[in-house]
């Protein structure tokens, strides 16, 4: 029983990371109907930037903040430069551009920072060395989950209670009408990309102390996040977050008791295929109706 509890808590901790990346994916999907294949590599790159800043002597949280801002700007620039012209192109073209981005960011990480596996510092480990809550949770897991939840809450409040958040939701929901009431739709889409890149950067920095940093760090994580986003409903941010947590728990429990750790990624594949076949809208998503 204690084992199950431990797996459950660990699942929730990694689930928080999946939830963040899932949220980033949903933010972009809602705005442009693109599945951002480069999300993981972009987050990895951001994490390397953070490591460089920390190694240059900056305090952790200042490096953290600078990285988030830099990632936001990068996201905005990428949307403006590369994806805007593809907004009306067929899916193959946008998938191609996103895959191109994936390759470029992956190479940049390796090129600039090397392929060796690196450790990434955690701001929480210094406070308590041993496990909390009866040994079930490490200080980092607890701290990372707290940061994740705070971020998710912040994003939620932003979308719900700010004028900018409302404008972004409107631009995603109905671009034509939004434009008519004076919302700069293009700017909102770019802002959405920036936000997604920033969320991804936070997720990268929080998971790096656990899985260690190398250019392919986010590959598997991206897949779980996709699974989580689909499970919750890819057009529903709250659903995607819950889906991310659920996938974290399923992955840990499934890995420990059902399929074994070797087939964990296959589990993500099964969740993706299962959701798309049984309930393509996800648990909380709206069923999609297309007028023809």
């Amino acid at each position: 029983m204690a084992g199950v509890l431990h797996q459950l808590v660990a699942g929730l901790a990694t689930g928080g990371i999946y939830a963040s990346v899932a949220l980033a994916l949903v933010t972009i999907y809602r705005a442009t109907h693109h599945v951002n294949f480069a999300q993981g590599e972009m987050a990895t790159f951001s994490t390397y930037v953070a490591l460089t800043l920390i190694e240059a002597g900056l305090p952790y949280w200042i490096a953290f903040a600078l990285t988030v801002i830099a990632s936001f700007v990068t996201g905005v620039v990428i949307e403006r430069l590369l994806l805007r012209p593809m907004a009306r192109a067929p899916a193959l073209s946008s998938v191609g551009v996103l895959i191109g981005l994936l390759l470029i960011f992956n190479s940049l990480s390796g090129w600039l920072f090397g392929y060796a596996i690196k450790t990434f510092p955690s701001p929480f480990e210094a406070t308590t060395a041993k496990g909390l809550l009866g040994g079930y949770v490490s200080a980092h897991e607890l701290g990372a989950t707290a940061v994740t939840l705070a971020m998710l809450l912040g994003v939620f409040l932003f979308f719900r209670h700010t004028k900018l958040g409302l404008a972004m939701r409107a631009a995603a929901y109905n671009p034509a009408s939004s434009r008519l009431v004076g919302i700069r739709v293009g700017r909102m889409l770019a802002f959405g990309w920036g936000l997604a890149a920033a969320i991804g950067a936070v997720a990268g920095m929080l998971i790096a102390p656990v899985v260690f940093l190398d250019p392919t760090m986010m590959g598997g994580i991206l897949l779980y996040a996709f699974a989580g986003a689909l499970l919750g409903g890819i057009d529903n941010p709250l659903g995607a977050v819950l889906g991310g947590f659920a996938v974290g728990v399923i992955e840990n429990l499934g890995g420990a008791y059902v399929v074994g750790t070797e087939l964990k990624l296959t589990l993500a594949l099964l969740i993706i295929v299962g959701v798309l076949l049984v309930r393509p809208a996800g648990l909380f998503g709206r069923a999609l109706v297309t007028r023809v």
Partner: protein
Amino acid sequence: MIAGRAALLAGTTVLLAPLFLFTDYHLFELTLAIATALAILGLNLVTGHTGQISLGHGAFYAIGAYVTAILMADYDVPYWATLPASAVVCAVVGFAIGLPALRLRGHYLALTTFALAVAMPQILKYRGLEGLTGGVQGIVLAKAGPPFGLALTPDRWLYLFALAVAAPLFLLVYNLARGRIGLAMAAIRDHPLAAEAMGIDLARLKTGTFAISALITGIAGSLGAIAVQFVAPDSFPPLLSIFLFVGLIVGGIRSEAGAVIGALFVQFVPDLADQVSKAAPGALYGLALIAVLYLMPQGAAGALRRALAPLLHLRSGGAPAAGTGGRRANPGGTRHVE
């Protein structure tokens, strides 16, 4: 007629010339390029012609390679006899994956097939299959030599063998794409609903295309395994699928010549770029991918054809716009979800 024969003669000369001009090692690389071209040809059919984006064709390549390796190592089947088996297995797997793929379009299908590519090495490493797949260690194969005591080095023979396998498959796709089925595939790609209304059996054609595409890519995997004489789970990382995708776009998504150009690009550009940095090939692939999508959406083959058309007085054949610009979003405020 005479022009056709001349072209055939010229083509054969170009294909056979490396036998006399190149070293064994370079021929070995060319053999791999042929395998890659075949793999891209399979992708050509499903992504280029039918419009189903696959980022997971490396998985079929891996399955083909493993079928050949297992048959050769465990059952002493001669290398050439493994190809039909690998074709059948891959066609069945392709059909099985084509079934759920029926319900997915655009980015969703790309995502699902990508998940397959990511999961593939893990499945191959799985301990329950270790007896068959050799686990992480993989399988080492014997070198395939020339038959009938031909005075050829094995690498030279394998180059010929790969050519002989690839030629009929290229012919198959060429004819498929230009016949009745090719028209049906174009209709499905450009307007599935209208195609269905015209009486095209969407499900049958899509799953059928997936099966044939997987079959071709699987045979490519078999050729690759025979040439490399080794298979292991990490020979087939998710990046393999992405490289095939890069080759598809760079060459030209609906062109048989494009499959060859794309394969040569994927095969030989890294060799050159590698001298700059370990990261350079990936960066170059990425840049090439984006540049091609923006600058020549019909790929290198399309650009070449346009450049050569005035010289050769080729009929343009009304080649439909590939890549970008095909389908526009509906103006009436309806939203297409890919």
